[in-house]
């Protein structure tokens, strides 16, 4: 100031420029596509995208034509049943693991997460091997139940979809419930016990109300995922459609973008309504669950309870892990229609380099590039909203998080709707459009993870740098990034490992040149090539497991953060 004259007077505008770039990206690739979809939903079927063609035809069809109406109904049935069943399985299991003395708790917890990490469509097709029309498990069970005059129905249809989704999503409830039961204040329960309350009374009046917010959040997560899931109903649905598969059907079968847009809008409205209701209900009952040392929590020692709990957890865990075991076995055989697989072979694997080399390259390339760009975008936006707090930070935050609750098919409908090959910017069938869809869908992962690291980073470290004369970009590079790197890395790993198995967005966006491994698995299943599909799945799972394993052993926060976002 004295000898050195200030280089410039007035405010520093760089943050606003850098704020502007991500905003621009979001405007072009998120807001505009969503707005486009919304407008398109009001276009007559088959008509051009123009304000002259406005009509409510698309919506009218949803509420009048049988296939639309039944899809809507099916989506509701699936969403609600999967949520209820997940609660019925997850809550007791969480209670057993947290409150009953049973062996192998650690293992139950770490195996319990596997169904979530595994792509749900892989689970679906291995259930076909087990419970399909000629499924091995079904054959065995029917043979046993035959004398009683009972029959297990095949996995196809609504029941199978619900069953398979429940086995995929119950871990959300189980893990959150376990955490809540484990953390609920032991002192509160002790004092109630001293006042003479019975165990059941304490459960009803103290413990359950305390964990209700956690359960509410878990149910919401399950519901949103269930009605947004594409892979399971696509494989197990057959003639039974739900909204995401109907969207796919409208586009893939009829190139009816306008119709697909109407369905997408309805799908988003359902998600939004549920989200809103949950916010209203849960925010009214937020209690401070003061966590206490886990050892203080009273455990059931009773022998009956222990045996029951062990068996219950064992059955659930084995059932939810059967698909993984099944596809590993299947990948070494050509056929598995009777009790035992037939035709041992290594061909399923040996053919991969030739048949799937390009797909593996695509999957790796798309995921890596998208992860890299997502890491930059997510960290930058997290830093800006958290540290610079510009006007409109709340809007940016919401915009970034919105795709987190949007079903993958909706995101791709929006992108197709805005960038299909007859549009102004033609991106159909390119790598670019897939990478953009991946970025839009996964930025929340990195964003959340980085915001969490930033809130733990004392701002005075960055202020010290500013005062020492550093421009904020310098500060970001030299101080903030090195210190939030763990957050960036864990968010990126989660992004990468979930992108490798992405199906629901890719399936509407890929072209001949951009097929990925999950797409190939999906079509192999449709062609009945279960051996080939299994071998590809095993490789994919191995990669995902290795990545998840490494990330778990390098940073603790990643997995729980990943769980919350799935």
């Amino acid at each position, binding site marked *: *100031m*004295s000898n050195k004259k*200030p280089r410039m007077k*007035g*405010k520093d505008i760089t943050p606003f420029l850098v704020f502007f770039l991500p905003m621009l990206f979001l405007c072009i690739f998120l807001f505009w596509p969503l707005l486009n979809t919304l407008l398109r939903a009001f276009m007559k079927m088959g008509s051009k995208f123009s304000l002259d063609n406005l009509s409510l035809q698309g919506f009218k069809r949803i509420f009048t034509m049988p296939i639309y109406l039944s899809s809507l109904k099916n989506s509701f049935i699936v969403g609600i049943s999967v949520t209820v069943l997940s609660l019925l399985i997850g809550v007791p299991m969480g209670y057993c693991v947290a409150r009953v003395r049973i062996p192998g708790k650690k293992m139950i917890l770490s195996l319990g997460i596997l169904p979530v990490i595994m792509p749900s469509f892989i689970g679906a097709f291995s259930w076909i091997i087990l419970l399909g029309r000629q499924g091995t498990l079904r054959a065995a069970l029917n043979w046993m139940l035959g004398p009683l005059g009972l029959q297990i129905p095949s996995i196809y249809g609504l029941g199978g979809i619900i069953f398979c989704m429940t086995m995929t999503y119950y871990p959300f409830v189980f893990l959150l419930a376990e955490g809540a039961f484990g953390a609920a204040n032991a002192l509160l329960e002790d004092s109630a016990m001293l006042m003479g309350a019975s165990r059941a009374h304490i459960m009803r009046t103290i413990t359950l109300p305390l964990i209700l917010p956690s359960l509410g959040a878990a149910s919401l997560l399950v519901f949103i995922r269930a009605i947004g899931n594409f892979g399971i109903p696509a494989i197990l649905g057959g003639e039974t459609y739900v909204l995401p598969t109907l969207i796919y059907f409208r586009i893939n079968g009829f190139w009816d973008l306008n119709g697909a847009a109407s369905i997408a809008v309805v799908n988003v409205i359902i998600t939004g309504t549920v989200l809103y209701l949950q916010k209203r209900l849960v925010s009214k009952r937020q209690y401070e669950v003061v966590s206490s040392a886990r050892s203080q929590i009273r455990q059931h020692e009773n022998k009956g309870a222990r045996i029951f709990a062990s068996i219950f957890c064992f059955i659930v865990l084995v059932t939810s892990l059967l698909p993984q075991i099944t596809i590993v076995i299947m990948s070494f055989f050509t056929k598995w229609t009777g009790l035992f697989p037939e035709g041992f072979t290594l061909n399923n694997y040996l053919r991969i380099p030739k048949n799937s080399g390009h797909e593996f390259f695509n999957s790796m390339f798309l995921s890596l590039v998208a992860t890299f760009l997502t890491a930059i975008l997510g960290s930058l936006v997290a830093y800006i909203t958290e540290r610079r707090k510009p006007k409109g930070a709340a809007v940016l935050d919401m915009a970034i998080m919105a795709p987190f609750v949007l079903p993958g098919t909706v995101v791709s409908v929006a992108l197709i709707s805005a960038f299909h090959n007859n549009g102004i910017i033609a991106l159909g069938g390119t790598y670019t459009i897939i990478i953009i869809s991946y970025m839009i869908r996964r930025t929340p992962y990195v964003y959340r993870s980085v915001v969490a690291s930033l809130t733990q980073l004392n701002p*005075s470290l960055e*202020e010290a740098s500013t005062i*020492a004369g*550093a421009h904020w970009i310098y500060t970001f590079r030299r101080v903030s990034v090195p*210190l939030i790197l763990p957050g960036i890395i864990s968010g990126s790993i989660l992004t990468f490992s979930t992108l490798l198995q992405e199906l629901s967005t890719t399936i509407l966006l890929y072209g001949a040149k951009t097929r990925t491994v999950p797409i190939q698995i999906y079509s192999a299943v449709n062609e009945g090539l279960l051996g080939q599909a299994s071998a590809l799945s095993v490789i994919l799972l191995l990669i995902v497991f290795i990545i998840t394993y490494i990330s778990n052993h390098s940073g603790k926060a990643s997995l729980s953060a990943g769980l919350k976002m799935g």
Partner: protein
Amino acid sequence: MSLNLSYQGVNKIFNDKTKAAVHALRDVSFTVNPGELFCLLGPSGCGKTTLLRSTAGLETITSGKIMYGDTDITTIPPFRRNIGMVFQSFALYPHMNIFENVAYGLRVRKVPEAEVKRKVTEVMELVGLQDELKRNPSPMGLSGGQQQRVAIARALVYDPDILLLDEPLANLDAKLRRYMRAEIRRIQKRTNITTLFVTHDQEEAMAIGDRLAVLKLGVVEQIGTSDELYNKPENAFVSNFIGKMNFFSGQIEGSCDSARINGRPIIVSVDHEKNRSDGMPGTKVLIGARPEQMEVSSLASSNSIEGKVGIIQHLGQFIRYEVTVPCNVSEKTMEIDMPQLVPGIKEGDEVFISIKSGKGFFFPQEVSVNEQ
């Protein structure tokens, strides 16, 4: 050559125009002289940190001006102000060794490597860390006092125009605090950088500062040297914040430098200099007396008030008597320092206390004054 740092009518309102508005600084105006070590002192939440952060540019003030010499720095962004700051938490970078921590401001300024080496070595010698610099560990492995020195070195290395210290000693233990405050004064006098030092510890402020500003609820109550604040406090708040003050309520009697303690036939007269009441006879005033301006005796005199001895503490140079005096419905505890033990007075005894003639202060009766 340093210049004046002056604040002109500075106001800071957090969350302005909302329900949660906090008026953290009110019309703050004063000037810090070049090379001065200036202390900001006040109770928690009075706005010391806010004033410091506004000086650094980390907060934008709501109105007013901050001038450095003739330059208005109010709107200059913080990274262009050339200021050094030491944070309470030290804010050292865990991912850099101590050399890189200290060199940070030079690296930002793209100083050539040889110059960086020379400057870092020089400043580390100044703060007494030349040996640690040879090992060059991560700052996380250093003791609190050493971390503090690194933080000071980091703030000084690029010759800032102003040095800001926000409670830099709060994280150190009592013995180290005393040592480090002397060190800080030594370093400041050696470098002669205009320095603002924030603390809520009046002993620390009096020991270290050339001048002090006492803040209360965002308002500067008084500015002066330790001596001026102690001997000529402008109001009851300052008088009780800088050193201890015993208070009595009273009324001006006769001339304006004598007053009668309420409900007693006692007249207190003060040195005209210290009389801040300027009141007519009958005006209510607050009569203040420092512990050493009072006396304890086992004998009554015409100017004494009866009380009961609570605790007697031997504090080295003097003996402190705590005497409870009935006051309206409750009672008050007075602290009185005597040069030596008064024979015949034990804890629990009835005694008589008085204000030495010509000593004591008159303050206007304030509603919210912290009477004790």
